[in-house]
């Protein structure tokens, strides 16, 4: 992708797609759709999308074509991706809903096809306005018991960094 500094925002259709799952998006596309925030350069989402920065174009293009995301000219955080915590992935804009979406994306990336119960737990906590850190810890315990102990620890460590930053 030529312009990794481009800024994109989720459209209303994109927000609906997160819940509806109407399109057959790849995991990388879905992760990108969840974390994209209309403020950060698109290249900074490469790690959470689970692809190399130069592949971001392939991930992004279907989202644009389906009208799930749209470019924003001169976003406020253009170029400000260096020095961010958590591997350069931009942190959500502070709202718990955005943090919950980022946690869901993290769970889907870490646990892949086995993320279902963890995602469900996180979404329930987000819907009820509960403590996200407690939900992440609880989800990690569930993952440690029923999915993978090492991945559960990785998830919790990254979730703590994401929430506390």
């Amino acid at each position, binding site marked *: 992708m030529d312009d990794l500094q481009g800024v994109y925002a989720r459209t209303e259709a994109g927000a609906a797609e997160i819940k509806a799952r109407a399109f057959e998006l790849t995991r990388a596309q879905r992760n990108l759709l969840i974390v994209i925030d209309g403020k950060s350069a698109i290249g900074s989402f490469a790690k959470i999308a689970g692809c190399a920065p130069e592949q971001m174009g392939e991930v992004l293009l279907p989202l644009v074509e389906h009208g799930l995301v749209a470019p924003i000219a001169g976003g406020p955080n253009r170029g400000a991706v260096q020095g961010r915590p958590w591997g350069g992935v931009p942190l959500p804009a502070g709202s718990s809903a955005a943090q919950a979406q980022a946690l869901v994306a993290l769970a889907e990336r870490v646990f892949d096809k*086995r993320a279902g119960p963890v995602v469900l737990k996180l979404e329930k906590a987000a819907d009820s306005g509960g403590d996200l850190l407690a939900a992440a810890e609880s989800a990690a*315990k569930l993952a*440690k*018991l*029923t*999915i*993978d102990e090492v991945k559960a620890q990785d998830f919790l460590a990254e979730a703590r960094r994401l929430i506390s930053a």
Partner: protein
Amino acid sequence: MQLDIITIVGLGAVLIMLINLFQVISLKSQISGGVVGKSWNIMILLVVLFAAGYMILPFLATMPVETLRIIVSMILFFGAIYVLVTIRLIYGIIRELSA
């Protein structure tokens, strides 16, 4: 086959073990790994063995005593392993939840 109290209890045991077998295999899809997942594969194997062992119950009366003793001792042995696995699993869950 004579339908006495021993046969009825035996058939009941087979039925319950088949239900156990169905449940332990059904739950496997929800437990792909982790602390519980490790023990779950052993438990599936043991339940399969039990189910196979219990199938001989209706034929107890026709079996030689020596064969019967071997089968009963095997069922007791694997029963003890099953209890051990279950206790260790519960201990592991308690430890994780209290950590």
